[in-house]
């Protein structure tokens, strides 16, 4: 083998091993860590298996937020106006969590059909609506705060 060929062989070998390893790793990690997004009405149509981790988005139903006696567990209903589901979360809620606000929660459904959230996300803008929530709402034909065009200050 000429030195030049040898060098090319090294090049190609390194590339193949490197990219092969990466693809393997990526595919393996991908399968385990993809999180699907559902709306409450999709869950009502039983598109989700119990025990599967996913993201849930919707509006917090007015008057549904109940704090448990331990002080940091909160239960509330999440709706996309067509369906709704009970959500339970243990931990401090984000600053912008409030009734009527669009939020995204990540977690699983338990045996009782309650969505047990491990994480609750709400963003830092009072007009903000997570796009997933906005679209899920649009799909059910509901009007939501974010669809009102933002007016400039006055």
């Amino acid at each position, binding site marked *: 083998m000429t*030195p*030049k060929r*040898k*060098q090319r062989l*090294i*090049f190609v070998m*390194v*590339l193949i091993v*490197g*990219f092969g*390893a*990466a693809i393997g*790793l*990526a595919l*393996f*990690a*991908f399968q*385990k*860590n*993809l*999180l*699907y*997004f559902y709306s409450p009405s999709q869950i009502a149509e039983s598109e989700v298996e119990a025990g599967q981790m996913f*993201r849930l988005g919707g509006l917090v139903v007015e008057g549904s937020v109940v*704090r448990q006696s*331990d*002080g*940091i567990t909160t239960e509330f209903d999440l709706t996309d106006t067509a369906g709704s589901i009970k959500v339970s979360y*243990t*931990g*401090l*809620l984000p*600053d*912008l969590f409030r009734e009527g606000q669009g939020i995204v929660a990540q977690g699983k459904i338990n045996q009782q059909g309650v969505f047990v959230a491990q994480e609750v996300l709400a*963003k*830092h*803008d*009072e007009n903000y609506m*997570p*796009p*997933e929530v906005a*679209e899920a709402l649009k799909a059910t034909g509901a009007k939501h705060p974010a669809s009102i065009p933002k007016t*400039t*200050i*006055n």
Partner: protein
Amino acid sequence: MVAEIGQFTLIIALCLAIAQSTIPLIGAYRNNLSWMSVGRTAASGQFLFLFISFICLTYCFVTNDFSVLYVANNSNTKLPVYYQISAVWGAHEGSLLLWVLALAAWGFAVSIFSRALPADMIARVLAVMGMIGIGFILFTLLTSNPFERLFPAAIEGRDLNPLLQDPGLVIHPPMLYMGYVGFSVAFAFAIAALLSGKMDSAWVRWSRPWASIAWVFLTIGIGLGSWWAYHELGWGGWWFWDPVENASFMPWLVGTALIHSLAVTEKRSTFKSWTILLSIMAFSLSLLGTFLVRSGVLVSVHSFASDPARGLYILIFLAIVVGSSLTLYAWRANQFTSGGRFDLISKETMLLINNVLLVVAMITILVGTLYPLFLDALGLPKLSVGPPYFSAVFVPLMLPLVILMGIGPIAKWRRVPVKELFGKLKVLLLLGVALGIILPLAIYRDTTVMTAVGIAAAAWAILTALYAVLRLVIKRDSSTSFAKACSKIPRAMIGMVTAHVGIGIFILGVVFTSSFSDQKETSAKFGEEIELAGYTFVLESVSGVQGPNYQAMRGSVNVTKQGSPVAMLYPEKRVYTVQTNPMTEPGIQTGVFRDLYVSLGEPLNENEWGFRIYYRPFIQWVWIGTLLMALGGLLGAMDKRYRTLAKAEKKATNSNPVTQTTSA
């Protein structure tokens, strides 16, 4: 009036950018010196006018000119002056103005510091930078004009997003942009090499310091962003694999590959077309990052407004830049002949593997970041790729990189016997493994396999880096003194060692903080004792405080350890007067070996609050390591040989009678 001057100077800068991108290029093609020299003048002019434009916008902010829409949307009379200034780049339009100013600043720097470069080379480099300038100034003027008027003028501004009212955010964007945009210089050098077909050692020596400096800025920018997230978001985390973080991390990874590949190209005159490709990739990823952040396709604190026109513009611009440069690459890259040969076990191969690993890591992050967007665009089910994906892919790829990092610096070019390498490194290898096992057990009386591996890797990185420089001193001739041997170490070598030690310290911080952090989310009655990681936290009271543009509830938290006082912390819950969003401001006591971090939740009743406590060991090491990496890059770029080279070439060409010495 001032806003109009700002707008007008922006238009003049655009005209100069057009001149800069065409005339020198034609000059280089026709070998006309006076046409080529237009590049320098235009680059200086472009910088000057953009600077005036930027000052005008700043003036509008400081004087509370709410007849300018952008000012009215992002400032307020009650906002402290330093935040009024940083608010200039607090939202989309102004941050773009900063972007183009940074680009012009780099162009100006190239025109000053590269006077010794062959005239046709600098003409091409500046022309390419001019083209990028046209793209972004047009973008600013057409879709995101910061000087747009508001009629009738607002009486009061809507205030800056409270999240951005933080010292970290004052300097984070400028640093990050200098890094992003800095890769445009390496990109311009690469395109100039493709256009001229010349890529000699002088080319490499000229482009290498620029790539290093851009990398330094990007490193600091990312580090500051992470530091800000830790201090401001109130979750005690420092990196979230958020798409916007990934957007800045991808060019960093490729930039890291680039500065290593440039080393091979300089010393061995090989890897030439690969270096060119990396230069193109680094800048393209910077543009991709800009697209992801500015188009509104991503949702995060960084995406200010979603405007499809903006997204479309950057996407088309990205397509033109990537498409044309890759076409040029495919057409011209094969003319660069490779220099020295090398064996399987050699420094070249190790740097090659380094490059492959870094690029592969970038690709896996790219896939994880873009895949959800891609599915979304096709109308397929919505999903997101969680942080565990990135950790699961990234960590295994970085481990061999760190191992190689220890071997590479002491390996010889061309060929190095395995026995020789192993002989030199076996002690350090054993020492590293021993430290990996012992350190966690000694400090925390606990460990896992992953922790031990991580700490061993960190120890290995630090030990081998120190060895690489110390052996130069230890193995000196008996005639040379210790001090002389030290002073003889090239600055590039010191830079490399500093950066590698920085990586080791960074890993140490990451591993310790992710292995031994502790946290508690609880309800706290006033006076109640809460234990965490050996510390006792007592929320004593919460009282109202009036800030300049916010009202806050401030908690007083007394922290003790076995009865002796450690710290008083004052976490706040702020409500900003204008935007009325509640904001959590944590109370943090920083220490070398651990941070104590508390933040307030919601009031549960009169004397009970939701309360979060974090114990974060070694977290400061993450940023200390990052700073060392940046310092290392800076030292490397300041190596003496770049300056002596500049002088030598200046004498040789002598076409430019200047007295300025180059230091970049």
